[in-house]
């Protein structure tokens, strides 16, 4: 008779994977969004240094995505 080994998945492990995905994917998303903005902001600053403040703001706007990811991860664990 053949018996199939029954394996249990530990829910804690899945939670950890979920948390990792939440932070990792949102981090990638933020980076992807900030890439173009950052490059453009540096370009603008090369023309006019006074744009530093506005450039910084526009660059960090998408970074809220990863903060939300981090919060979600913290809530999951």
């Amino acid at each position: 008779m053949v018996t199939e080994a029954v394996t249990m998945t530990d829910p804690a492990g899945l939670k950890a994977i979920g948390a990792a995905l939440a932070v990792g994917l949102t981090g990638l998303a933020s980076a992807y969004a900030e890439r173009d903005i950052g490059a453009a902001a540096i370009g603008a600053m090369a023309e006019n240094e006074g744009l530093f403040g506005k450039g910084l703001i526009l660059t960090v706007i998408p970074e809220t995505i990863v903060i939300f990811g981090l919060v979600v991860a913290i809530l999951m664990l």
Partner: protein
Amino acid sequence: MLRPKQMTRAVIVGHKDILENTVDALHNGNLFQIEDFVEEDDSYLKIGKPFDNGSELSKQLVKIRSIASLLGVKDNTAEKQSTKAVCTQLDNCLDSLDAELDAHVEKKSMLENELKDVLSTKRDLSPFINIDLDLDLYRGYESLDVFTGHVKEDITPSLSKITSSFELFYDSHSGVIVLFVAREKAAEVTEMLPSFTFKELKVPQLSGVPSRLIADIEGKEAELLGKIDAIEQDIDALKQQYGDFILASNELLSIEVQKSDAPLRIATTESSFLIDGWLPTERYGELEQIVNKATSSRAFIYTQEISKSDVPKVPIEYNNPKVVSPLQEIMNLYGRPTYKEIDPSALIFITFPLLYGMILGDMGYALILATLSIVIKKVVSSDAIKSLMNILIYCQISAFLFGILYGEFLGFPLAGYHGTPGLIPGFETIDLIATPFAGEVIGYPLHRTHLIMTFIVATVFVGLIHINIGYLVGFINEKRKHGIFAAIFEKGSWFVVQLGIFLTVLGYLGMLPIILGAVIFIIGVAMLLKGEGIKGPIELPSILSNSLSYTRIIAVGLSSISIASTVNFIAFGMIWQPGSQIGAMTLFAIVVFIFGHSLNTILSIIAPGLHALRLQYVEFFGKFYEGGGRKYDPFGYIRKYTEEK
């Protein structure tokens, strides 16, 4: 505070006789920002002409600046010299200094060119260094062809197959060949050579054996380098001797040129002039006094009302107490406030360090960073960096206070928590109030790692307060600019919307009829629609996203704690346990501890700093701030190296 300094637009009119005296007095006063005059075609007012000495002064200034750049004179803290002494010295020695320096520089560049030639010959010769053959023997044959170049391996075997009448010199070390072959076989050899990746070398047009030639060249190179060095020393001596004089005369001439060019910014007629400009209202009396003194009261000064179209042009001078002034750097990064706007420097003086402290909240890092900033402030002389360090110090004070509240030191909890011991033996967390969130209990100290849900909710509330202060300031700005009704519809509507949402939530919980909240919400949206147009309702979700954005206060804080406690665990948990035997591992643990915390210290400036800054710039300023004011930059000069005696 909260408003830029009040400015006055003043006009000075007088006869051209007294123009020079007036300009002199204004320049010394350093308080009046001249508004550049723009000439119009049909106007009877013309742009003035520079004073007579202008072109001569400009020439001298150009000369001094070129000398300064050739000598590499840098700003320093020299003793102030009297202008008279500098003037006499300027007349006496500017030309001779210029000539002397020119001679040195010319000689140096000649020697450098020579050196370049020598080095290039050396480079051309160096492949042939191991082939002991006079260079004259490389050329001038009638029946022989000469191949010189690099190959990848010895070509003798292949060559022997083509012909036996050849003479080959091969330097196996560098792969250089010199091949003499009968002319009739040259074509075949040319065909064969590419298979050895032959790269031709040009033979320098010199005579003599390469190795000896190179030795000669090296001797010459050393001699040239010695000469260049001597000239550099002479130039350095000039720099030592004249450095302070150059700085002083540069300053003096810059001032004189500014003065002599001033008429180019001033309106004039045949025999009179008219200077238009700005100054802080509080200094108007001073302006009258200095101009009257310089012109024996012959100039006429009057104030002009600031019209609506002038408002964007008004230069902005901050009006903040000294403690707040470092925060002006943060304002400058974003853009100065405009004249009618509230200057939020004093607000971010409180909110920026507050949010920074809430995020970092660690006594250890606060102490390290405070010490660092104080040291840097003492060492560095740049004003911008000093202000930055002052801001950092404010932030560290706040971080230290929050560190006491959170009971954290370099990632270690100070107090024990339900059985796990803290850094201070016997100091136990005192439980105070149970919260409705995930059974968490508020106590002292506040363990952020055990109060995550509570902190997330609390930070959103901090955000709501911060944002609403923003709306309130926006309300005041709007009222000042466009009147009370515009303010109520544009900014007041946001309060109504929030009230509506709050009452709806209460209704949802069954405390109120839900319709009440919904009606107020709809009224708020309608007001917003009237105030801001369609853009208003589109921005409605920003209330949610903006206030949720403040959860970064706990999120970034937790990540900092995690890094710190991981470092602590690796050092004093995995590598070496306190209490066990002291040995090499103890040292290793300490190294890891120091390295890890240095890294986290740097992150503790960047992460909380940038996030706190972003909360100001995006979430807070977005509600009210326009910015873009012009800097108040009075006509004058702050002397560093000279003084009038």
